[in-house]
C-alpha cells in the first residue's frame, strides 16, 4: 500500500482513539455538559478556521466574510430540517451548496481586489448577508429562528470535522493546492508558470465558503435558536484570530488556533471582567514573540519525532511532504 495512504490511516487511527476517549468521558459524565458543549464548539470552530485558512493562509486572499457564509449554511440547514423535515446530513449538504454558490458569486467580482480592499469588500458583503437574513420574515427576521431540533452531537461534529480536515489536507497537498500557494507567494510568477490565478482564487473561496456553510449547519442544530446576531463581523474576526494565531498556511495551526481561542474563552467564562483583557493580552504577546503563529507554515506531521514515527509505520523513505 502507498505510504501516503498508510500515513492517513495512522492519523485516522489516532483520531478514532481520541474520539473514543472523549466519547467515553462524555457518556460517563466525566466531562460535564459545559465542557461537552465547548468540545463541540471547538470542533465547529476547527472547521471554520481550517476553511478560512484555505482562503487567507494558503491562497493569501484576505477575507473577513466568513461568518456570512456560516450564516447562510446555518439558515439553509434549519429551513431544510424544520420546514421540510429533511435529515441533518441533507441539511448540511444543502447548506454547504448554498454557501458555496454564494461564495462563488461573491468571489468572482471581489477577488479582483487585493489586500486591504478585498478585506473591506468581504467584510461588507458578510454584513450584507446578515442584514438580508434579518429582513426575511420566513426565517424569523431579527428575532431569530426558534424551535430548531437538537440534532447535532459530539459524534456528528467530530466526524464532519475529520472529513473537512481530510478534504482540505488533500487539496493543499496537490497541484491545485500548490497553485493556490503559488498565488500567495507571488501572483505574477504564478501566472507566468501557467496558473489561472482568478480560477484558483475563486475555487479556494468557494471551497472555504462551502465548509463554513457546513459548520453553520452544525452550529445551528446545537443551539435551539439562531439569530442574525450570532453571525456578525465580530465572529468573522474571531475565526481570523484562530487562523493567525495558529499560523497562516498550516492545518495543524488552525486546529491549535481554534482549540486555544475556544478554550481560553470557555476557561475564562467565570471571570467576565478579566476575560477580554487576558484574551487581548495573549494576542498581543503572541504577535510580539511569534508573529508567524503557533505553527507558522509547519504541520505537526512534519515535526521531527512524529515524522520519524509516521515514516517508520508507513515504511516511507526520508522525504518531506
Amino acid at each position, binding site marked *: 500500500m502507498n505510504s501516503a495512504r498508510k500515513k492517513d490511516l495512522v492519523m485516522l487511527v489516532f483520531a478514532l482513539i481520541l474520539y473514543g476517549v472523549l466519547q467515553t468521558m462524555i457518556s460517563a459524565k466525566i466531562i460535564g455538559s459545559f465542557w461537552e458543549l465547548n468540545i463541540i464548539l471547538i470542533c465547529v470552530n476547527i472547521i471554520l478556521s481550517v476553511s478560512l485558512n484555505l482562503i487567507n493562509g494558503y491562497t493569501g486572499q484576505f477575507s473577513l466574510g466568513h461568518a456570512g457564509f456560516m450564516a447562510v449554511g446555518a439558515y439553509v440547514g434549519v429551513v431544510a430540517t424544520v420546514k421540510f423535515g429533511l435529515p441533518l446530513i441533507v441539511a448540511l449538504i444543502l447548506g454547504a451548496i448554498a454557501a458555496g454558490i454564494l461564495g462563488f458569486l461573491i468571489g468572482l467580482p471581489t477577488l479582483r481586489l487585493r489586500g486591504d480592499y478585498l478585506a473591506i469588500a468581504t467584510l461588507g458583503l458578510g454584513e450584507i448577508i446578515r442584514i438580508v437574513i434579518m429582513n426575511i420574515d420566513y426565517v424569523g427576521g431579527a428575532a431569530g429562528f426558534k424551535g430548531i431540533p437538537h440534532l447535532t452531537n459530539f459524534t456528528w461534529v467530530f466526524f464532519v470535522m475529520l472529513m473537512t480536515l481530510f478534504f482540505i489536507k488533500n*487539496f493543499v497537498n496537490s*497541484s491545485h493546492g*500548490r497553485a493556490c*500557494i503559488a498565488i500567495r507567494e507571488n501572483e*505574477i510568477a504564478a*501566472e*507566468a*508558470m501557467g496558473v489561472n490565478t482568478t480560477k484558483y482564487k475563486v475555487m479556494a473561496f468557494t471551497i472555504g465558503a462551502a465548509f463554513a456553510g457546513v459548520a453553520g449547519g452544525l452550529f445551528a442544530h446545537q443551539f435551539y435558536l439562531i439569530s442574525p446576531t450570532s453571525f456578525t463581523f465580530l465572529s468573522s474576526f474571531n475565526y481570523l484570530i484562530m487562523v493567525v494565531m495558529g499560523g497562516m498556511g498550516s492545518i495543524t495551526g488552525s486546529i491549535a488556533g481554534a482549540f486555544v481561542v475556544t478554550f481560553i474563552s470557555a476557561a475564562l467564562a467565570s471571570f467576565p471582567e478579566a476575560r477580554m483583557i487576558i484574551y487581548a493580552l495573549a494576542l498581543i504577546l503572541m504577535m510580539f514573540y511569534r508573529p508567524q503563529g503557533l505553527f507558522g507554515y509547519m504541520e505537526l506531521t512534519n515535526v521531527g519525532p512524529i515524522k520519524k514515527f509516521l515514516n517508520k509505520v508507513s515504511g516511507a523513505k526520508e522525504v518531506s511532504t
Partner: protein
Amino acid sequence: MADKHLLETVDVSEVFGGLKAVSDFNIYIDKGELIGLIGPNGAGKTTAFNLITGVYKPTTGEINFDGKSLVGLKPYEITQRGIARTFQNIRLFSELSVLDNVKIAYHCHVKYGLIETVLRMGRYFGEEKSIEDEALNLLKIFKLDDHAYEVAKNLPYGAQRRLEIARALAAKPKLLLLDEPAAGMNPQETQELMEMIRWIREQFGLTVLLIEHDMSLVMGICERIYVLEYGIIIADGTPSDIQKNPEVIRAYLGAEAIN
C-alpha cells in the same frame, strides 16, 4: 509566413500614456534558435518580454506563436501554449522549498481533477510521483538537488537564478525567455551559465530568447542579436555584424566614439 517562424511579432507597439515604450517592433525567431535582445537601459527590452508573455496587451500589432495569435491571451494561457520566462528581478516562491518551486510549474500538465485530488484516487498518486521525479531530475541538472528541501529564499543569489530557469523549464516550454539571466553573477558563474543555456537548448530542443547586458555572454552564445534603443529595433544580425554596426556603437558609446 506565420507557419514558418516559431515566434513572430508584426509592427507591435506599446504606448503608456504619452510614452511610446516600444514601437514598430518586428522580430522573428525560428525553431531551435538562440537569440539575444540587447540595448541600453530603458530601451524597452523587458516591455517587449511582457508583451510576448501577455503581461501587457500590445496597443497595436500582432504576435504569432506556432502559427496562432497570442494577442489578448492571459499570461497563464500563453504559458500553456509553450512560452515560459524568468524575471529580471527574481520572482521565486520564496517561502517554499526549492522542490515545491519547481513542482508548481508542472501545474498545466497535471491531468487529475478535483475529485481525484480530495479522495486521493485515480491518477493522483501516479502523477504526483512522476512530477516529483521529474522535478528532482531537473534540480539535478541545475546542481540544486542538494538544496531540494531548503527554503528558496535562503539560496545564494546565483542558485536562485538557476532555480528560476529550472522552474521555467518545468513548464515544458517550446520557447524560453530569459530576462537578464546573468545579472549579479560573477564571471565564473556567467561562464557556467552560458554552458548551461547551450546544453539545455540541445537537451530539451528549446528555442531561447534572452535579454542580457553581459556582452561576453551575449556574443558568446547568441546566433542572432536584436538591438533595441528607445523602443525601436536599430540593428539585427550575427554577433560579429552587431559589433561592427555603427548604429549600435553610437547607441552604446555615443556618436563621438565613431569619429
